[in-house]
């Protein structure tokens, strides 16, 4: 990782395809996108890599930067695939997860380590932490990296409520490397731990994790990118020839659908919410103290949870229904005592700190002055929130103007009025004896 780089994002723009429309600027939950000179620009400090802009763009101009299997060639001596459980829901009529895992071996991996194993441990550990009663309630899940980034940027009071435990893919990655070293005797760096992920937020989190120093993951492949090749390998397999590899439990697998994580904790009072707009509403209510009586809050930025990630091959609803069917045949996770849990891997080592990226100015006096100007400017704008200025709404344009990043002439209506006035003045000076020209 480049240490001097302040922000890394997996979500990027393909400028050639961008038509400068207003779809993504309006959808972005952090108002991170502006259209300038006919092209969208993402403000790095604001983007939480939720992938909403990729989902909405009708021109496919937004994409997630991820690796391809071919890129890994020659880099490692032993490749371990880390399939996220959302991968299991991509295949029709799948009743045995070993088809997927054996398929991954035929696809070119040397070994597999399921992300569900990380999820099982986190479930156990969270139950223990909740029982110990030391966490600030309501405890908010830290599993969705887009949600954690949203909290960090917008909800200062809630930073201390976020479960200080690593995400399943990170826990699984670190366990997988240990297991691979024990099995092969290879040095750690010769082992490639490769996550197969459903969303760009996880790609970003792998490069720049929150809460832990390193993710332990060497590269991320997208589910939709390997889907065809993997399916091809799976189709060649006979059930009787499958190696029994899967250790997936119903508990760990259910994490990929909204609610799976929270229900597994068996708490009395919990809240489940998915979809980034709903998540913001839930965070606002939590911040207002309206949900103080809850034990646990599970928030996932994508519709229906991780199965709704933009890098999956199937729709969230179809995947979700398949995962529910799979769950019926899976065993529940076993209880693990605290002593047996890898606390060095599970515990966050870095505190989640509020990053006030929305503040107008570092100095309060200046910020108040800017806010006054902002309010004045808002009054002069038409309030149509049309987006043609390149900002998501009139207020955002006013904010850009105050920040010195745009001007009121970006507003089509203000410009039109100015031109009209200029036109009238010219007309009057050229024909001083005549009446005003007709408007329009």
């Amino acid at each position, binding site marked *: 990782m480049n240490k001097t780089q302040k922000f890394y994002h997996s979500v990027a723009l393909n400028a050639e395809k961008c038509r400068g429309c207003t779809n993504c600027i309006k959808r972005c939950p952090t108002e991170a996108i502006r259209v300038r000179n006919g092209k969208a620009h993402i403000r790095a400090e604001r983007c939480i890599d939720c992938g909403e802009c990729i989902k909405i763009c009708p021109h496919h101009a937004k994409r997630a930067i991820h690796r391809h299997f071919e890129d890994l060639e020659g880099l490692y001596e032993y490749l371990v695939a880390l399939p996220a459980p959302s991968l299991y829901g991509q295949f029709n009529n799948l009743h045995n997860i070993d088809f997927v895992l054996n398929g991954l071996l035929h696809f070119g991996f040397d070994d597999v380590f399921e992300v569900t194993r990380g999820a099982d441990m986190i479930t156990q550990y969270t139950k223990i932490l909740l029982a110990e009663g030391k966490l600030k309630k309501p405890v908010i899940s830290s599993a969705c990296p887009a949600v954690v980034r949203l909290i960090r940027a*917008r909800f*200062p*009071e809630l930073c201390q409520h976020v479960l200080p435990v690593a995400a399943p893919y990170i826990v699984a990655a670190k366990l997988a490397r240990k297991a691979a070293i024990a099995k092969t005797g290879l040095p750690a760096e010769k082992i490639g731990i490769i996550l197969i992920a459903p969303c760009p937020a996880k790609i970003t989190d792998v490069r720049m994790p929150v809460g832990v120093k390193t993710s332990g993951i060497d590269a991320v492949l997208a589910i939709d990118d390997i889907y065809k090749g993997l399916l091809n390998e799976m189709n060649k397999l006979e059930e009787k020839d499958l190696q029994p590899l899967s250790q997936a439990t119903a508990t760990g697998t259910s994490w990929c659908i909204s609610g799976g994580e929270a229900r597994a904790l068996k708490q009395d009072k919990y809240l489940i919410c998915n979809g980034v707009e709903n998540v913001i509403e839930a965070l*606002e209510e939590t*911040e*207002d*103290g309206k949900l103080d009586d809850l034990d646990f809050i599970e928030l996932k930025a994508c519709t229906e949870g991780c199965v709704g990630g933009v890098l999956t091959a199937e729709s969230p609803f179809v995947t979700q229904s398949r995962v529910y069917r799979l769950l019926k045949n899976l065993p529940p996770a076993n209880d693990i005592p605290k002593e047996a849990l890898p606390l060095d891997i599970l515990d966050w080592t870095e505190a989640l700190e*509020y990053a*006030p990226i*929305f*503040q*107008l*100015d*570092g100095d*309060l*006096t200046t*910020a*108040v*002055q800017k*806010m*006054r100007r902002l*309010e004045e400017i808002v009054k002069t704008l038409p309030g149509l929130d049309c987006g043609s200025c390149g900002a998501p709404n009139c207020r955002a344009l006013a*904010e850009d103007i105050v920040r010195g990043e745009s001007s009121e002439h970006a507003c089509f209506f203000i410009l039109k009025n100015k031109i009209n006035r200029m036109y009238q003045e010219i007309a009057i000076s050229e024909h001083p004896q005549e009446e005003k020209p007709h408007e329009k």
Partner: protein
Amino acid sequence: MNEILKLHYVVDGNNFSLAGQAASDVKKMLKTLGMAPDVIRRVSIAMYEGEMNMVIHADGGEIDVDVTPKAVVMRLADRGPGIADIDLVMQEGYSTAPDDIRALGFGAGMGLPNMKKYSNDLKIESQLGIGTTITMRVDINSRG
């Protein structure tokens, strides 16, 4: 004078689903200003309770907020029934909230005590049959 940001809100007494909107807007504004999380929390709790009281007990009213780099001052004025005994309503647990409001989770009689707890100064002016004006100040850089 350039340092005062003035905000004005009209609180609709008939629309329960909009109740709390003004407090929520102020909270957003303070975040954009980069205020300390602790100040934001105290202002938003105090204002939310005051706003809810306006809706529940006084058919709405108007809120003026002055933001300066030193303090946030909120003035909540209503034309409701007024408060007969201010010491009484300030007691924790005192409430006249009707049953339908209690069913919604209000009526613990903790609103006013919390407004006092979270602000640095709270002043109540009330006249029976005319209305109530509550002024609260939350200082920046000091704890209430």
